[in-house]
């Protein structure tokens, strides 16, 4: 199922994944903005910032860059929001975003096996299926190469899967290189994720949030108001799964924020990233989850067994300050210093 871990592709993927974070569109835009409107004072700050961080990034990423040279560049495109590179090293294709001379892998597609999910955390996003009371509709925010959504669509053909992607060029490339096509019950919408939810009248059984790009996070997709909006669009017994990169203080703030809206948060450690599964109400008992996992594994024949994922489930006392920094603040539309938090390395506090 997985490529041998010694293969060059795998090691380069791992290297890329190590660097993987998420990039706010603001920062990307800043670069575009800087290029086009150099007369403006604003630009000076942006330039200084990108020169400094660019220099630092350059030092760090030499090794990664040389590894990437073995990949075959299929297409690169500058979109409104990202610099997108699609690489191929058979049988894998990867969609990556360039930022500050680093390459951030956003999605990996196995051209010989469309149901393969080579990136660990994308598998764990599907763990949400065992939490939902019913599975009739799924909303994903952040389509990228569309692997998670496509996997769920193929195993759950009767379920309405809708995925929202901000960047039209990402959608175009996903359709061109990642085997994505419109099918009954599978819809991709080109829209800002928060706007889409705000205007949607529907409720969903599962909402997957994976909308971040490169090293940063667009703040409006990480605030209490945003999660409240998400909660208002959950069907009864609905659940949210969110991918978070845990190496900086932004993780602590994200956990506190999601916890401020959803009383229950389960954690899944997934190859450097962490998938949080959040839901309202009481904590789900492991034996109940195991029963549903078993039942749905049998019913839908998932390749990545829900039961196996359940074994990785972790609970954390979010408020005792031992794992999640007691000083971490809930992010709001008013106060969300995501870039600043992202720059603070997290102390090495592991999930138990």
């Amino acid at each position, binding site marked *: 199922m997985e490529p041998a871990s010694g293969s060059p592709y795998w090691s380069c993927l791992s290297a890329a994944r190590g660097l993987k974070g998420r990039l706010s*569109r603001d920062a990307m835009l800043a670069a575009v903005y800087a290029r086009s409107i150099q007369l403006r004072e604003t630009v000076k700050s942006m330039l200084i910032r990108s020169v400094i961080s660019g220099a630092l990034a350059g030092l760090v990423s030499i090794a990664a860059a040389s590894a990437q040279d073995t990949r075959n560049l299929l297409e690169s495109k500058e979109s409104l929001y990202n610099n997108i590179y699609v690489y191929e090293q058979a049988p894998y294709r990867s969609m990556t975003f360039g930022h500050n001379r680093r390459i951030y892998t956003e999605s990996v597609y196995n051209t010989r096996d469309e149901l393969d999910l080579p990136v660990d955390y994308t598998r764990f996003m599907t763990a949400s299926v065992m939490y939902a009371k019913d599975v009739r509709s799924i909303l994903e925010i952040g389509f990228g190469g569309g692997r998670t959504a496509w996997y769920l669509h193929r195993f759950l053909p009767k379920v309405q899967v809708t995925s929202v992607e901000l960047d039209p060029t990402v959608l175009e490339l996903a359709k061109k290189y990642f085997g994505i096509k419109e099918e009954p019950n599978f819809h991709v919408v080109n829209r800002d994720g928060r706007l889409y939810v705000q205007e949607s009248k529907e409720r969903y059984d599962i909402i997957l949030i994976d909308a971040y790009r490169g090293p940063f996070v667009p703040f*409006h997709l990480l605030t209490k*108001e945003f999660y409240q909006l998400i909660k208002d669009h959950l069907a009864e017994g609905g659940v949210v799964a969110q991918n978070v990169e845990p190496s900086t203080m932004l993780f602590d703030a994200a956990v506190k924020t999601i916890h401020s809206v959803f009383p229950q948060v389960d954690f899944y450690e997934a190859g450097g990233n962490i998938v949080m599964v959040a839901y309202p109400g009481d904590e789900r008992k492991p034996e109940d989850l195991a029963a549903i996992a078993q039942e749905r594994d049998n019913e839908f024949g998932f390749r990545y067994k829900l039961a196996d994922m359940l074994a990785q489930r972790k609970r954390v006392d979010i408020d005792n300050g031992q794992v999640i920094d007691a000083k971490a603040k809930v992010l709001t539309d008013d106060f969300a210093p995501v870039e600043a938090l992202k720059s603070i390395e997290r102390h090495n506090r592991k999930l138990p």
Partner: protein
Amino acid sequence: MSEPVSRAGLLAIYICSFLVGCVLMGFEMLGSRYLNPYFGSGIGAWASLISTVLCALAIGYFAGSAIVDRQPTTRTIGTMILIAAAYMALVPATADTVMADILDTIGDGPSATLMAATALLLVPLTLLGTFSPIAVSLLTRSAGEAGRVAGLVYGVSTIGNVVGTLVTTFALIPTIGSRAITYYFAVILAGCAAILFIPFGKKTS
């Protein structure tokens, strides 16, 4: 040439020029925080913000030059700044309603984003834009020094722009909320207006 200003008056105008420059760009950066939750953080939001700010400045410069022909006093610019301060003080409490209304009625296309940026920025920044031309006129004693004075005023105000951008983005947004920053800006502007209302006597020299 306009009514001459004392030495203290000159200093006050340069200080206000700097502070107004700070608030002007600081408020543009803040504008993104008000807009993003409703209109996304895409390049469209930035284009709307930047074009609105430049529009406001253009209108402000024209209005300022018209005022120079009529009543260029420190009180005039003080009044402009005070109205801008009052407008900014209203923004935190009303912005969410206005943004949500625009989103509900027009949607989120370029026209909606532009309208949101306009509602947020146009009035206060136009008023602040009148500052520089009037300041140049007040500081200029002879036609020969007009160029030198204009250079100084724009230099000082542009340094203010740089400081406002950097401090707002890297110091204020990460430590206090956007609404609080907006109130501080209103207070700073009110302070500038107060300084400009001090009757600076006729120049003695």
